[in-house]
Protein backbone atom coordinates (compact mmCIF):
# COMPACT_ATOMS: atom_id res chain seq x y z
CA UNK A 1 0.00 0.00 0.00
CA UNK A 2 1.39 3.32 -0.97
CA UNK A 3 1.74 6.43 1.08
CA UNK A 4 0.42 9.53 -0.68
CA UNK A 5 3.37 11.52 0.66
CA UNK A 6 5.84 9.70 -1.60
CA UNK A 7 6.02 10.68 -5.27
CA UNK A 8 5.81 8.02 -7.94
CA UNK A 9 7.19 7.84 -11.45
CA UNK A 10 7.04 5.45 -14.36
CA UNK A 11 9.69 4.74 -16.96
CA UNK A 12 8.11 3.86 -20.30
CA UNK A 13 10.63 2.94 -23.03
CA UNK A 14 9.27 3.01 -26.57
CA UNK A 15 10.40 -0.58 -27.05
CA UNK A 16 9.87 -3.53 -24.72
CA UNK A 17 13.11 -4.44 -23.05
CA UNK A 18 15.08 -7.64 -23.43
CA UNK A 19 16.20 -9.21 -20.13
CA UNK A 20 19.78 -8.01 -20.63
CA UNK A 21 18.75 -4.39 -21.10
CA UNK A 22 16.27 -4.63 -18.24
CA UNK A 23 19.05 -5.96 -16.02
CA UNK A 24 21.31 -3.02 -16.89
CA UNK A 25 18.48 -0.53 -16.32
CA UNK A 26 17.47 -2.01 -12.97
CA UNK A 27 21.07 -2.17 -11.78
CA UNK A 28 21.45 1.48 -12.70
CA UNK A 29 18.29 2.32 -10.74
CA UNK A 30 19.41 0.16 -7.80
CA UNK A 31 22.41 2.42 -7.47
CA UNK A 32 20.24 5.48 -6.81
CA UNK A 33 19.57 6.22 -3.16
CA UNK A 34 16.00 7.22 -2.39
CA UNK A 35 13.98 4.65 -4.35
CA UNK A 36 11.57 3.02 -1.91
CA UNK A 37 9.79 0.54 -4.12
CA UNK A 38 10.10 -0.56 -7.69
CA UNK A 39 7.81 -2.66 -9.87
CA UNK A 40 8.43 -4.30 -13.24
CA UNK A 41 5.36 -4.31 -15.43
CA UNK A 42 4.59 -5.83 -18.82
CA UNK A 43 2.79 -8.60 -20.68
CA UNK A 44 3.19 -12.04 -19.10
CA UNK A 45 5.30 -14.90 -20.40
CA UNK A 46 3.53 -18.02 -19.09
CA UNK A 47 5.37 -21.25 -18.36
CA UNK A 48 2.70 -23.28 -20.17
CA UNK A 49 0.56 -22.46 -23.19
CA UNK A 50 -2.56 -20.84 -21.71
CA UNK A 51 -5.10 -21.25 -24.54
CA UNK A 52 -5.84 -23.28 -27.63
CA UNK A 53 -5.32 -26.90 -28.61
CA UNK A 54 -1.79 -26.94 -27.11
CA UNK A 55 -3.03 -25.68 -23.74
CA UNK A 56 -0.93 -26.92 -20.84
CA UNK A 57 2.14 -27.86 -22.88
CA UNK A 58 5.47 -26.23 -21.95
CA UNK A 59 6.19 -22.81 -23.37
CA UNK A 60 9.93 -22.26 -23.76
CA UNK A 61 10.65 -18.52 -24.07
CA UNK A 62 14.12 -16.99 -24.14
CA UNK A 63 12.96 -13.83 -22.32
CA UNK A 64 11.61 -15.70 -19.29
CA UNK A 65 14.92 -15.83 -17.51
CA UNK A 66 16.55 -14.82 -14.27
CA UNK A 67 18.33 -11.48 -14.03
CA UNK A 68 20.70 -10.31 -11.33
CA UNK A 69 19.97 -6.91 -9.79
CA UNK A 70 22.25 -5.66 -7.02
CA UNK A 71 22.55 -8.64 -4.67
CA UNK A 72 19.33 -10.39 -5.65
CA UNK A 73 18.22 -12.72 -8.40
CA UNK A 74 14.90 -11.88 -10.03
CA UNK A 75 13.04 -14.46 -12.10
CA UNK A 76 11.35 -12.48 -14.87
CA UNK A 77 7.80 -13.57 -15.61
CA UNK A 78 7.00 -10.67 -17.94
CA UNK A 79 8.49 -8.89 -20.90
CA UNK A 80 9.66 -5.65 -19.29
CA UNK A 81 7.41 -2.88 -20.61
CA UNK A 82 7.46 -0.28 -17.84
CA UNK A 83 9.21 0.24 -14.52
CA UNK A 84 7.14 1.88 -11.80
CA UNK A 85 8.98 3.59 -8.98
CA UNK A 86 8.10 5.10 -5.63
CA UNK A 87 10.74 7.52 -4.40
CA UNK A 88 11.52 9.49 -1.26
CA UNK A 89 11.15 12.93 -2.83
CA UNK A 90 10.92 14.74 -6.18
CA UNK A 91 14.67 15.29 -6.45
CA UNK A 92 15.17 11.53 -6.89
CA UNK A 93 12.93 11.62 -9.97
CA UNK A 94 15.23 14.22 -11.51
CA UNK A 95 18.20 11.99 -10.78
CA UNK A 96 16.42 9.08 -12.46
CA UNK A 97 15.65 11.32 -15.44
CA UNK A 98 19.25 12.35 -15.92
CA UNK A 99 20.46 8.73 -15.74
CA UNK A 100 17.73 7.50 -18.10
CA UNK A 101 18.57 10.25 -20.62
CA UNK A 102 22.01 8.68 -20.95
CA UNK A 103 20.70 5.10 -20.79
CA UNK A 104 18.09 5.19 -23.56
CA UNK A 105 20.11 6.09 -26.64
CA UNK A 106 18.82 3.60 -29.22
CA UNK A 107 15.15 4.38 -28.70
CA UNK A 108 13.32 7.09 -26.74
CA UNK A 109 11.55 6.74 -23.41
CA UNK A 110 9.00 8.62 -21.31
CA UNK A 111 9.33 9.41 -17.62
CA UNK A 112 5.84 9.99 -16.28
CA UNK A 113 5.10 11.37 -12.83
CA UNK A 114 1.79 10.41 -11.20
CA UNK A 115 0.17 7.65 -9.16
CA UNK A 116 0.83 4.19 -10.53
CA UNK A 117 0.67 1.86 -7.51
CA UNK A 118 -2.25 0.68 -5.40
CA UNK A 119 -3.34 3.12 -2.69
CA UNK A 120 -5.50 0.75 -0.62
CA UNK A 121 -5.57 -3.03 -0.21
CA UNK A 122 -8.20 -4.69 -2.37
CA UNK A 123 -10.46 -7.56 -1.39
CA UNK A 124 -7.99 -10.02 -2.93
CA UNK A 125 -5.15 -8.51 -0.90
CA UNK A 126 -7.27 -8.84 2.22
CA UNK A 127 -8.09 -12.47 1.45
CA UNK A 128 -4.45 -13.27 0.80
CA UNK A 129 -2.58 -11.23 3.41
CA UNK A 130 -5.24 -10.69 6.11
CA UNK A 131 -6.02 -7.52 8.07
CA UNK A 132 -2.51 -7.00 9.48
CA UNK A 133 -0.59 -7.11 6.20
CA UNK A 134 2.62 -5.17 5.80
CA UNK A 135 1.45 -2.10 3.90
CA UNK A 136 4.76 -1.56 2.16
CA UNK A 137 4.49 -4.90 0.36
CA UNK A 138 0.93 -4.59 -0.91
CA UNK A 139 0.64 -3.71 -4.58
CA UNK A 140 4.11 -4.94 -5.48
CA UNK A 141 3.21 -8.47 -6.55
CA UNK A 142 0.15 -10.23 -7.85
CA UNK A 143 -1.63 -11.57 -4.73
CA UNK A 144 -2.96 -14.52 -6.74
CA UNK A 145 0.52 -15.76 -7.66
CA UNK A 146 1.86 -16.30 -4.14
CA UNK A 147 5.20 -14.70 -4.93
CA UNK A 148 6.78 -12.24 -2.60
CA UNK A 149 8.62 -9.06 -3.62
CA UNK A 150 12.42 -9.09 -3.91
CA UNK A 151 14.29 -6.94 -1.41
CA UNK A 152 17.39 -5.28 -2.79
CA UNK A 153 20.16 -4.36 -0.42
CA UNK A 154 22.49 -1.88 -2.02
CA UNK A 155 25.64 -0.46 -0.57
CA UNK A 156 24.23 3.02 -0.02
Amino acid sequence: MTNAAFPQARIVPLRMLKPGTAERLLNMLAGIAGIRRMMIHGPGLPKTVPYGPARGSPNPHSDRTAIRVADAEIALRVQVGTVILEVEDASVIEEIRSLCDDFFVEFPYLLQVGKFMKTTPTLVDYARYGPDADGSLIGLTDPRKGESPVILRTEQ
Partner: protein
Amino acid sequence: MAYKPQYGPGTSIVAENRRKQMNPGQKLEKVRSVTDEDIVLILGHRAPGSAYPTAHPPLAEQQEVNCPMRKLVKPTEGAKAGDRVRYIQFADSMFNAPSQPYQRTYTEMYRFRGIDPGTLSGRQIVECRERDLEKYAKDLIETEMFDPALVGIRGATVHGHSLRLAEDGMMFDMLQRNVLGEDGIVKYVKNQIGEPLDRAVAVGKPMDEKWLKAHTTIFHSLVGTAYRDDAEYVEYVQRIHSLRTKYGFMPKEE
Protein backbone atom coordinates in the same frame (compact mmCIF):
# COMPACT_ATOMS: atom_id res chain seq x y z
CA MET B 1 -21.20 0.68 -68.91
CA ALA B 2 -19.75 -2.27 -67.02
CA TYR B 3 -19.43 -1.84 -63.28
CA LYS B 4 -15.87 -1.17 -62.17
CA PRO B 5 -15.26 -1.54 -58.45
CA GLN B 6 -13.34 1.27 -56.80
CA TYR B 7 -12.39 -0.84 -53.71
CA GLY B 8 -11.97 2.17 -51.44
CA PRO B 9 -11.55 5.93 -51.17
CA GLY B 10 -8.43 7.91 -50.38
CA THR B 11 -5.43 9.54 -51.98
CA SER B 12 -2.72 8.48 -49.51
CA ILE B 13 -0.27 5.60 -49.96
CA VAL B 14 -2.21 3.63 -47.34
CA ALA B 15 -5.41 3.92 -49.37
CA GLU B 16 -3.51 3.00 -52.51
CA ASN B 17 -2.11 -0.14 -50.81
CA ARG B 18 -5.55 -1.13 -49.56
CA ARG B 19 -6.95 -0.91 -53.09
CA LYS B 20 -3.96 -2.78 -54.47
CA GLN B 21 -4.40 -5.69 -52.05
CA MET B 22 -8.14 -5.91 -52.66
CA ASN B 23 -8.01 -5.69 -56.43
CA PRO B 24 -7.69 -9.25 -57.80
CA GLY B 25 -6.53 -7.78 -61.09
CA GLN B 26 -3.34 -6.51 -59.45
CA LYS B 27 -0.61 -9.06 -58.91
CA LEU B 28 0.87 -8.84 -55.43
CA GLU B 29 4.63 -8.55 -55.33
CA LYS B 30 6.37 -11.77 -54.23
CA VAL B 31 8.86 -10.85 -51.53
CA ARG B 32 10.04 -14.17 -50.12
CA SER B 33 9.76 -17.83 -50.87
CA VAL B 34 8.65 -20.50 -48.44
CA THR B 35 8.31 -24.16 -49.42
CA ASP B 36 5.03 -26.08 -49.28
CA GLU B 37 6.46 -28.29 -46.54
CA ASP B 38 7.32 -25.22 -44.44
CA ILE B 39 3.73 -23.97 -44.75
CA VAL B 40 2.39 -27.36 -43.63
CA LEU B 41 4.75 -27.29 -40.63
CA ILE B 42 3.69 -23.79 -39.55
CA LEU B 43 0.00 -24.60 -39.95
CA GLY B 44 0.38 -27.78 -37.89
CA HIS B 45 -2.78 -29.46 -39.16
CA ARG B 46 -1.14 -32.55 -40.66
CA ALA B 47 2.33 -34.09 -40.91
CA PRO B 48 4.21 -33.03 -44.07
CA GLY B 49 3.84 -35.62 -46.80
CA SER B 50 0.85 -37.34 -45.21
CA ALA B 51 -2.44 -37.70 -47.06
CA TYR B 52 -5.18 -35.14 -46.52
CA PRO B 53 -7.68 -36.49 -43.99
CA THR B 54 -11.19 -36.23 -45.34
CA ALA B 55 -14.49 -35.10 -43.89
CA HIS B 56 -16.60 -36.80 -46.59
CA PRO B 57 -16.03 -38.96 -49.70
CA PRO B 58 -14.87 -37.14 -52.85
CA LEU B 59 -17.71 -35.48 -54.73
CA ALA B 60 -17.08 -37.70 -57.77
CA GLU B 61 -17.95 -40.76 -55.69
CA GLN B 62 -21.13 -39.27 -54.34
CA GLN B 63 -24.58 -39.21 -55.78
CA GLU B 64 -25.14 -35.50 -56.12
CA VAL B 65 -28.64 -34.17 -55.94
CA ASN B 66 -29.97 -32.45 -59.00
CA CYS B 67 -29.40 -28.86 -57.94
CA PRO B 68 -28.99 -25.91 -60.32
CA MET B 69 -26.69 -24.10 -57.86
CA ARG B 70 -24.31 -27.05 -57.75
CA LYS B 71 -24.16 -27.00 -61.53
CA LEU B 72 -23.46 -23.28 -61.49
CA VAL B 73 -20.80 -23.18 -58.76
CA LYS B 74 -17.75 -25.29 -59.43
CA PRO B 75 -16.26 -26.82 -56.26
CA THR B 76 -12.72 -25.91 -55.21
CA GLU B 77 -10.02 -28.60 -55.26
CA GLY B 78 -10.38 -29.16 -51.53
CA ALA B 79 -14.15 -29.46 -51.67
CA LYS B 80 -13.91 -31.85 -54.63
CA ALA B 81 -11.63 -34.15 -52.61
CA GLY B 82 -13.69 -33.87 -49.44
CA ASP B 83 -10.94 -32.30 -47.29
CA ARG B 84 -11.45 -31.19 -43.71
CA VAL B 85 -11.96 -27.49 -43.02
CA ARG B 86 -8.85 -26.03 -41.38
CA TYR B 87 -7.62 -22.52 -40.59
CA ILE B 88 -4.80 -20.02 -40.56
CA GLN B 89 -4.86 -17.00 -38.28
CA PHE B 90 -2.77 -13.85 -38.46
CA ALA B 91 -2.04 -11.15 -35.89
CA ASP B 92 -0.90 -7.85 -37.44
CA SER B 93 1.01 -5.20 -35.54
CA MET B 94 -0.39 -1.69 -35.60
CA PHE B 95 3.14 -0.40 -36.22
CA ASN B 96 2.89 -0.38 -40.03
CA ALA B 97 2.23 -4.07 -40.60
CA PRO B 98 1.52 -4.61 -44.31
CA SER B 99 -2.01 -5.91 -43.77
CA GLN B 100 -4.68 -5.59 -41.11
CA PRO B 101 -7.59 -7.81 -40.04
CA TYR B 102 -10.40 -6.06 -41.95
CA GLN B 103 -8.12 -5.51 -44.90
CA ARG B 104 -7.25 -9.21 -44.95
CA THR B 105 -10.89 -10.22 -45.01
CA TYR B 106 -11.72 -7.82 -47.87
CA THR B 107 -8.67 -9.00 -49.78
CA GLU B 108 -9.40 -12.67 -49.30
CA MET B 109 -13.03 -12.25 -50.28
CA TYR B 110 -11.96 -10.64 -53.54
CA ARG B 111 -9.12 -13.04 -54.29
CA PHE B 112 -9.97 -16.49 -52.92
CA ARG B 113 -12.87 -18.94 -53.26
CA GLY B 114 -14.58 -21.15 -50.72
CA ILE B 115 -13.37 -19.32 -47.61
CA ASP B 116 -14.90 -18.31 -44.30
CA PRO B 117 -12.96 -15.45 -42.74
CA GLY B 118 -13.45 -14.26 -39.18
CA THR B 119 -12.36 -10.72 -38.38
CA LEU B 120 -11.44 -9.39 -34.94
CA SER B 121 -9.65 -6.27 -33.80
CA GLY B 122 -6.18 -7.76 -33.61
CA ARG B 123 -6.39 -11.04 -35.44
CA GLN B 124 -8.01 -12.49 -38.50
CA ILE B 125 -8.75 -16.13 -39.10
CA VAL B 126 -9.63 -17.73 -42.41
CA GLU B 127 -11.11 -21.19 -42.66
CA CYS B 128 -11.38 -23.32 -45.77
CA ARG B 129 -10.69 -26.80 -47.13
CA GLU B 130 -7.20 -27.96 -46.20
CA ARG B 131 -5.53 -28.10 -49.61
CA ASP B 132 -7.05 -24.76 -50.60
CA LEU B 133 -5.83 -23.35 -47.30
CA GLU B 134 -2.26 -24.37 -47.97
CA LYS B 135 -2.38 -22.67 -51.36
CA TYR B 136 -3.91 -19.49 -49.95
CA ALA B 137 -1.53 -19.49 -46.96
CA LYS B 138 1.42 -19.62 -49.35
CA ASP B 139 0.08 -16.57 -51.16
CA LEU B 140 -0.51 -14.72 -47.90
CA ILE B 141 2.99 -15.46 -46.57
CA GLU B 142 5.07 -15.06 -49.71
CA THR B 143 3.65 -11.78 -50.96
CA GLU B 144 3.82 -8.24 -49.69
CA MET B 145 0.92 -8.94 -47.30
CA PHE B 146 3.36 -10.47 -44.82
CA ASP B 147 6.29 -9.21 -42.79
CA PRO B 148 8.24 -11.70 -40.65
CA ALA B 149 8.59 -9.28 -37.72
CA LEU B 150 5.25 -7.47 -37.68
CA VAL B 151 2.86 -10.23 -38.75
CA GLY B 152 2.45 -13.34 -36.63
CA ILE B 153 0.90 -16.65 -37.68
CA ARG B 154 -0.90 -17.43 -34.47
CA GLY B 155 -3.67 -19.96 -34.07
CA ALA B 156 -4.10 -19.21 -30.37
CA THR B 157 -2.69 -16.76 -27.82
CA VAL B 158 -2.49 -13.89 -30.28
CA HIS B 159 -1.90 -11.01 -27.83
CA GLY B 160 0.57 -8.45 -29.17
CA HIS B 161 -0.83 -6.47 -32.10
CA SER B 162 -1.25 -3.23 -30.15
CA LEU B 163 1.82 -3.51 -27.93
CA ARG B 164 5.11 -1.72 -28.32
CA LEU B 165 7.60 -3.73 -30.34
CA ALA B 166 10.53 -5.52 -28.72
CA GLU B 167 14.00 -4.01 -28.90
CA ASP B 168 14.85 -6.06 -31.99
CA GLY B 169 11.70 -4.86 -33.76
CA MET B 170 9.67 -8.07 -33.31
CA MET B 171 6.00 -7.94 -32.31
CA PHE B 172 5.39 -9.32 -28.82
CA ASP B 173 4.47 -12.99 -28.76
CA MET B 174 3.78 -14.69 -25.47
CA LEU B 175 4.62 -18.06 -27.02
CA GLN B 176 7.65 -16.85 -29.00
CA ARG B 177 6.69 -18.80 -32.09
CA ASN B 178 9.10 -16.84 -34.26
CA VAL B 179 12.57 -15.67 -33.30
CA LEU B 180 14.93 -13.27 -34.99
CA GLY B 181 18.24 -15.12 -35.45
CA GLU B 182 21.75 -13.73 -35.32
CA ASP B 183 21.79 -13.80 -39.12
CA GLY B 184 18.82 -11.40 -39.24
CA ILE B 185 16.41 -14.07 -40.51
CA VAL B 186 13.16 -14.78 -38.70
CA LYS B 187 12.50 -18.43 -38.02
CA TYR B 188 9.37 -20.16 -36.78
CA VAL B 189 10.31 -22.54 -33.98
CA LYS B 190 6.73 -23.45 -33.07
CA ASN B 191 3.66 -24.07 -35.17
CA GLN B 192 0.74 -21.64 -35.08
CA ILE B 193 -0.75 -23.06 -31.87
CA GLY B 194 2.58 -23.10 -30.00
CA GLU B 195 3.81 -26.68 -30.36
CA PRO B 196 7.59 -26.89 -30.95
CA LEU B 197 8.62 -27.81 -34.50
CA ASP B 198 11.19 -30.51 -35.30
CA ARG B 199 13.12 -28.00 -37.36
CA ALA B 200 13.02 -24.21 -37.55
CA VAL B 201 11.19 -22.73 -40.53
CA ALA B 202 12.81 -19.64 -42.00
CA VAL B 203 10.45 -16.95 -43.32
CA GLY B 204 13.00 -14.36 -44.36
CA LYS B 205 14.35 -11.06 -43.14
CA PRO B 206 12.11 -8.40 -41.59
CA MET B 207 11.42 -5.59 -44.04
CA ASP B 208 12.97 -2.22 -43.34
CA GLU B 209 11.11 0.82 -42.04
CA LYS B 210 10.96 2.55 -45.42
CA TRP B 211 9.44 -0.47 -47.15
CA LEU B 212 6.89 -0.93 -44.38
CA LYS B 213 5.83 2.70 -44.55
CA ALA B 214 5.38 2.39 -48.30
CA HIS B 215 3.43 -0.90 -48.12
CA THR B 216 1.33 -0.62 -44.97
CA THR B 217 -2.45 -0.58 -44.94
CA ILE B 218 -2.89 1.04 -41.54
CA PHE B 219 -2.93 4.73 -40.72
CA HIS B 220 -0.67 5.64 -37.80
CA SER B 221 0.07 9.24 -36.95
CA LEU B 222 3.32 8.48 -35.10
CA VAL B 223 5.12 5.93 -37.25
CA GLY B 224 3.35 6.14 -40.60
CA THR B 225 0.76 8.11 -42.54
CA ALA B 226 -1.74 10.03 -40.40
CA TYR B 227 -5.41 9.39 -41.11
CA ARG B 228 -6.25 13.09 -41.07
CA ASP B 229 -3.74 13.71 -43.85
CA ASP B 230 -6.01 11.81 -46.23
CA ALA B 231 -8.81 14.34 -46.72
CA GLU B 232 -10.74 12.15 -49.19
CA TYR B 233 -10.82 9.22 -46.75
CA VAL B 234 -12.01 11.44 -43.90
CA GLU B 235 -14.71 12.96 -46.10
CA TYR B 236 -15.91 9.49 -47.15
CA VAL B 237 -16.08 8.16 -43.61
CA GLN B 238 -17.83 11.30 -42.40
CA ARG B 239 -20.39 10.92 -45.18
CA ILE B 240 -21.09 7.29 -44.25
CA HIS B 241 -21.30 8.23 -40.58
CA SER B 242 -23.68 11.07 -41.33
CA LEU B 243 -25.94 8.94 -43.55
CA ARG B 244 -26.02 6.11 -41.02
CA THR B 245 -26.95 8.51 -38.26
CA LYS B 246 -29.70 10.10 -40.31
CA TYR B 247 -30.94 6.79 -41.67
CA GLY B 248 -33.88 6.56 -39.30
CA PHE B 249 -35.11 9.91 -40.60
CA MET B 250 -35.13 8.81 -44.26
CA PRO B 251 -32.17 10.86 -45.46
CA LYS B 252 -32.25 12.63 -48.81
CA GLU B 253 -29.00 13.81 -50.30
CA GLU B 254 -29.06 17.47 -51.35
